């Protein structure tokens, strides 16, 4: 039965001979190449780690120390006041809950719609396929703009509801096309044998395609999830009631710098210079860290699907 596919460790293993566990070892690069690769990767890792360490260090330093040390990598004049400041924000916890809800429910629905549509669209032989693809590509290239969207959402009653952060972004064309491409790479023979066993289209999707597509589902789930997590635009424009704001909007309202409005321009947008509010650097940095930590906590659970390649899998037997 097709169900057997689920139990097989290697998705492309047709259940025949298991791969010998020593196979990977024959596959080593020459030592010098291996060294070069590792050193290169360490350098890249350090370069990309640096900005994050800097933000972390700034978030734990006193404001006056920050400008005395141009690129600090450890906190100077250590203080937790920035985090205390963030945590005393009245709507913070609620907004965190809203964002978690939107991210979890939103990503789930994103995946349901994206996977089903991508599966259907991976069948290029169905009549109308080409037009469906056009129908999906056009929105990727043309946006309607903020005002028409606002009017639409107002008319269908989504304004000021947390669902406005989920439903209008249900499927991203880019992710849909990506997913479909991955479905193409699944050997048709697997699907055919399942069909011969009498599986319906949905059963094929559920028992063959999805189990074999864990890496890409994890990847696209990550794309959707991070997009939900980082999205402040939707909340900002489509939710007026600030008790329903998501985390990123609330964080943004904490750290905003009014002076960013370009006081220098001849048409100064704020005449009242007494109102120029400036947030200390450490608070800005702390909001960045605060928003990233939950993502990091969840990441390893997704990462394992696409980092651990087949080759590694075969080494581990």
């Amino acid at each position, binding site marked *: 039965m097709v169900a057997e596919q689920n139990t097989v460790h290697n998705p492309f293993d047709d259940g025949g001979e298991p791969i010998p566990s020593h196979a990977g070892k024959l596959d080593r690069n020459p030592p010098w190449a291996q060294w070069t690769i590792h050193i290169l990767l360490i350098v890249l890792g350090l370069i990309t780690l640096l900005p994050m360490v800097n933000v972390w260090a700034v978030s734990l330093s006193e404001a006056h120390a920050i400008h005395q040390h141009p690129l600090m990598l450890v906190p100077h004049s250590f203080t937790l006041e920035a985090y205390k400041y963030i945590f005393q*924000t009245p*709507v913070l916890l609620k907004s965190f809950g809203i964002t978690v809800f939107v991210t979890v429910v939103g990503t789930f629905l994103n995946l349901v719609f994206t996977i089903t549509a991508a599966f259907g669209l991976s069948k290029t032989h169905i009549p109308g396929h080409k037009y469906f693809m056009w129908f999906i590509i056009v929105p990727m290239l043309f946006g309607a703009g903020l005002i028409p969207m606002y009017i639409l959402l107002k008319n269908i009653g989504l304004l000021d509801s947390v669902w406005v952060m989920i439903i209008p972004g249900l499927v991203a064309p880019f992710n849909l096309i990506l997913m479909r491409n991955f479905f193409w790479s699944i050997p048709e023979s697997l699907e055919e044998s399942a069909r011969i066993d009498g599986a319906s289209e949905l059963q094929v999707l559920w028992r063959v395609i999805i189990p074999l597509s864990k890496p890409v589902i994890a990847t696209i789930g990550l794309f959707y999830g991070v997009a939900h997590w980082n999205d402040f635009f939707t909340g900002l424009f489509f939710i*007026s009631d600030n008790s329903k704001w998501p985390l990123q909007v609330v964080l943004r*309202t904490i750290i905003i710098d*009014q002076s960013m409005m*370009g*006081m220098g321009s001849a048409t100064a947008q704020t005449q009242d210079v007494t109102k120029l509010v400036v947030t200390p650097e450490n608070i800005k940095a702390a909001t960045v860290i605060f928003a990233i930590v939950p993502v990091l906590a969840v990441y390893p659970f997704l990462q394992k699907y696409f980092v651990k390649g087949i080759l590694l899998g075969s080494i581990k037997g």
Partner: protein
Amino acid sequence: MMPNAKKAIGLMAAMLLLAGTLLGCTDSANPNGSADGDSGNSGDGANVGKKVKFSYLRPTWGPATYTKGGAYEKELFQRANVEIDVQIILVIDFDAKINTILASGNIPDVIWANGPVIERDRELQEQGAFLPINKYLDMYPAIRQAVPEGIWNKLTDKDGNIFFIPNLIYPVVPFQLMYRQDWFEKLNIPEPTTVDEFVAALEKIKNSDPDGNGKNDTIPFTMGYEWSFKDLGTAFGFSQFSWEPSATDSNKLIPWFMKDKEIDSYFWLQDLHKRGLLDPEFKVNKEPNFAEDKFNAGKVAVIPTHWASYVDKVTKLRKIDANVKIGIMSPLEGPGGKGGNRLVFPMDRGFYVSAKAEDPDGFFKFLNWTLTDGSDFRRYGIEGKMYTVKNGQKVPIPDAERENAYKGPQIEPLSFIGPMSEKLDWDQMKLSFEGAGVGDKFDYVKQKFEEYAKEDFPDYADPTIPAPFNSKEGTKLWNDYMEQITQSAIINHDVTKEQWLAAVDKWRKAGGDKIIEERNELQKDKSKPNYK
């Protein structure tokens, strides 16, 4: 292939039709788009017992953490017998947000906007989006008296209607030259009184090590924006970024980038930049507060900055060096004589009442209350929570020491207008100096303020006079011809005055002349304005 295509197109057409009718239905079912179904208050609502209800959209200057149902809100609602449905939006997002709201016809009863100083709001007034308020100003004199009569006149349209209630600001906001007096004394530099002495002082600082860290890394002079330069600019004899009478024809106003003195000041700054006297990060660092931060971190000797930031600067610098001394230079004497301050138009936004508001009278009654019986509550709030009484004076409790429910972000969204007479309150200022432990400096700062305030440099253009061509084409013409030269003149040392003038020529030919003509034609009164 053909039937295939037809089928697909047919399917899509059917879907379009279906969804179109769906959308059309909801559209026509909700013509007013009013979301606040709970405001069932009809009639005049003048009787005391009836709660006044209205919705209110306003920008906040952050942090936007206002929470409905808070303690202050409850107290206000009870005292004033109102119920306000407040929506807040950060000031930097405000324009985009109200555009969407206005375009969707979803206008709250009371809404903040820029007022008839911009074309959009003038158009909205004309198109009947807002309520004329003359009647209510007559009924409630306290509101009329809160705003100087001259401002009301400017806000009156050609038919004699007033729509807009301005949020006033005090027009004198000096950007004074603050400097490290301790360093100047150490290096034996006397306080500069002229522009030349000022440059000489910067030169001396550049070549020494005032903070004694062994490195020659003290920045003589920094500033955050060109706008910080506005009052130093007066020493050159111009009012920055403003229309002023042309040197050759006092009855013709010309824009800032055509004024010779102002152009020269840009190249003066370029020279400072070239000589390493002006912060090399000027105009390159996008951190909005970099200049202030660097001064507060003890890396800069002189900064032109908001006069009221003195206390903040002293407090922050004292953390690094307990003996720090900050001086304020008097207005410098320059090529244009003795300087003063570049006035600002005494208004920053304000609000409209929607033409569809259910109970405008109730709203004005409430507004009147905030300026009469409720005046003290509006200014000071709740005793013990927001202020204490010392020697018969109401002393505000600093925000950091208040309970969360009484902090600024909970109060600001519920504030409306304050009269001009409250805008420069020296008594309050003195209290805040004392609170910060620099009470002995209060008289010094006040005296400097008054020195700057002596000489006014206003913008001769009246922003309330519509200039339709400029509104339509001005920004584009500016970006096409002037943006690059003005943005690069100071920091790109190859830019010359000839190039600047050539850019102006192109701008004028491409339509700039029409902007100048329009301004001079529509604004009959070209005398020096006075907002004080």
